[in-house]
């Protein structure tokens, strides 16, 4: 294990930005490209938003925990809430499925998270909570770039 951290915060939308920044900072040493970083932050945002909106139904009290490990060029991250849980995970992960159509959710969160990560697994139990684990590989850029030259 190269490095490891845990962050817990109140499930309020202001902290979605906090989670994104913390994770950016945690992976900065892997020197990601701007696109890799954007993908990674999107995963974090989608998972944290789900915990706030679906897990805790915006009660403003629940706690979200992010555990992250770096192993070489690979980041594994688990985002946990102790909220309502998901009764049918398979259905929840279908593209366009949302349990809150009235909130104009796109139902694309899981699809986006899957497409931007190299591995994703979901644990959930109704009334216990949800834990989503991602792995993302950051390939080293074949950097032939020297400042001021080509």
């Amino acid at each position: 294990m190269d490095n490891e951290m845990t962050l817990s915060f109140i499930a309020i939308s202001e902290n979605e930005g906090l989670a994104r920044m913390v994770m950016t900072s945690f992976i900065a040493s892997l020197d990601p490209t701007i696109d890799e970083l954007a993908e990674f932050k999107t995963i974090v945002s989608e998972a944290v938003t789900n915990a706030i909106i679906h897990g805790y139904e915006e009660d403003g009290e629940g706690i979200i925990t992010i555990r992250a490990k770096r192993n070489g060029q690979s980041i594994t991250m688990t985002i946990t809430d102790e909220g309502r849980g998901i009764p049918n995970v398979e259905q929840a992960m279908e593209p366009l499925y949302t349990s809150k159509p009235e909130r104009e959710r796109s139902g694309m969160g899981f699809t986006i998270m899957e497409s931007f990560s190299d591995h994703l697994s979901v644990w959930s139990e109704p009334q216990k909570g949800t834990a989503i684990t991602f792995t993302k590989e950051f390939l080293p850029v074949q950097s032939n770039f020297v400042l001021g030259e080509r």
Partner: protein
Amino acid sequence: IGEIQRFLRDDGMVKVSRSIRELSFKIRHATDEFIRVHERQPTLTELAKTLEVTMDELVLASDALRDPASLHEQLFE
């Protein structure tokens, strides 16, 4: 105006949020320029060097560049 800005800057009274906005604009520009010249995406280190800012400043400002342009194209188009 330049005088006032310099005074504010030296005085440390400038809001961080303001300098972040300025930097995020420069990041966008430098990224486009890098892609044009090198035909690939810059990494954070390459951008920090190009813009002569610290990694901390870059990480902070890069959050203003949310939503990869490719996101919508990849998923919805």
